[in-house]
């Protein structure tokens, strides 16, 4: 199966109806699928921290929110993830293109890419690293954990994920 279709199916199957996004080249095929789905609101944002705020509002309003982002945006969101989501126990699904890991060709992606798993650990954000075959279930599972633990949960889509088609 196509990697982007698999991610979209996972989002759809989970019941996500509210998506904010900051683009990554690896996510580009998914955005039009979201735009074409009448059950989903898609809100492109200017910065990931802003997206965390919008998703928190959406959750309080009864939606199932997800943020599609690159891992570089984790750094832009840390205060909000802690002082909004952790403080108020607000779940959030972070669908994160993980750059700066094995297979990366752009050197600027490495520093943040290498730090991403340990930053998530520090923030007490659980994460899963799926393959194409497991991504649908992984996204569904991640949201279930987010709801159970009332916190953000991340799905890390490594460079290898997109190349395994």
């Amino acid at each position, binding site marked *: 199966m196509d990697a982007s279709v698999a991610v979209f199916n996972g989002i759809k199957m989970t019941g996500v109806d509210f998506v904010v996004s900051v683009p990554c080249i690896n996510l580009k095929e998914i955005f039009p699928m979201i735009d074409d789905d009448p059950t989903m609101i898609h809100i492109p944002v*200017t910065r990931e*921290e802003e997206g965390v705020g*919008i998703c928190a*509002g*959406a959750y*309080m309003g*009864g*939606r199932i929110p997800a943020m599609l982002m690159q891992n570089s945006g984790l750094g832009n969101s840390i205060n909000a993830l802690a002082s909004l989501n952790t403080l*108020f*126990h607000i779940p959030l699904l972070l669908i994160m293109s993980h750059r700066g890991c094995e297979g990366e060709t752009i050197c600027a992606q490495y520093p943040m890419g290498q730090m991403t798993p340990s930053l998530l650990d520090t923030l007490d954000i659980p994460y899963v690293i799926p393959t194409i075959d497991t991504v649908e279930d992984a996204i569904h599972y991640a949201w279930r954990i987010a709801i159970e633990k009332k916190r953000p949960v991340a799905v890390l889509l490594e460079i290898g994920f997109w190349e395994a088609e």
Partner: protein
Amino acid sequence: MKRFDAIKAIVQKAEDKDSLLICNIGYPSRELHDLKDRSANFYMLGSMGLSSSIGLGVALSVPERHVIAIDGDGSVLMNMGSLATIAHQHPKNYLLVVIDNGAYGSTGDQLTATALGTDLAIVAKGAGIDEVHNTFSEEEFREKLKNVDRGVIVVHVDAGNSKVPVIHLTPEKIIERFMSECARPSMSS
């Protein structure tokens, strides 16, 4: 006019419209809580800059309810991109009120850029928001509040906080009652 007076006027509108009200970190939330604690008030205890974003998320998710976000000049300067996102989403049930006192009021009244020439009403216009009002007196502000339900109102006030206590509600309590409010129908005609 002080921030306290502006919030007093906003509370009246929120009561009239049965609005969900999201309030900025620090003294603004403390002043709102002191003036009129409501279950439909979300006191944003942390995450400086995100009041306008949370308000947008609520407004888009609960389109049948009126939503007001109270923000400050320092906070809007920290998350200016939010104005661009509000512009392209332009929900008709969402009003953002920016209380501009030219100072970081909760941290000792250090000057913000609006005290040094930045005009947030022009910024909001430039971001693409079609309905933006700039008000300079309490009378003018109250008049605009009466007639305007969406877009942005900037209200210029003098710096200074009221002597109000800290909020003793837990974050868990604040969000629990706010979410119950989001889930019920509007009582406004």
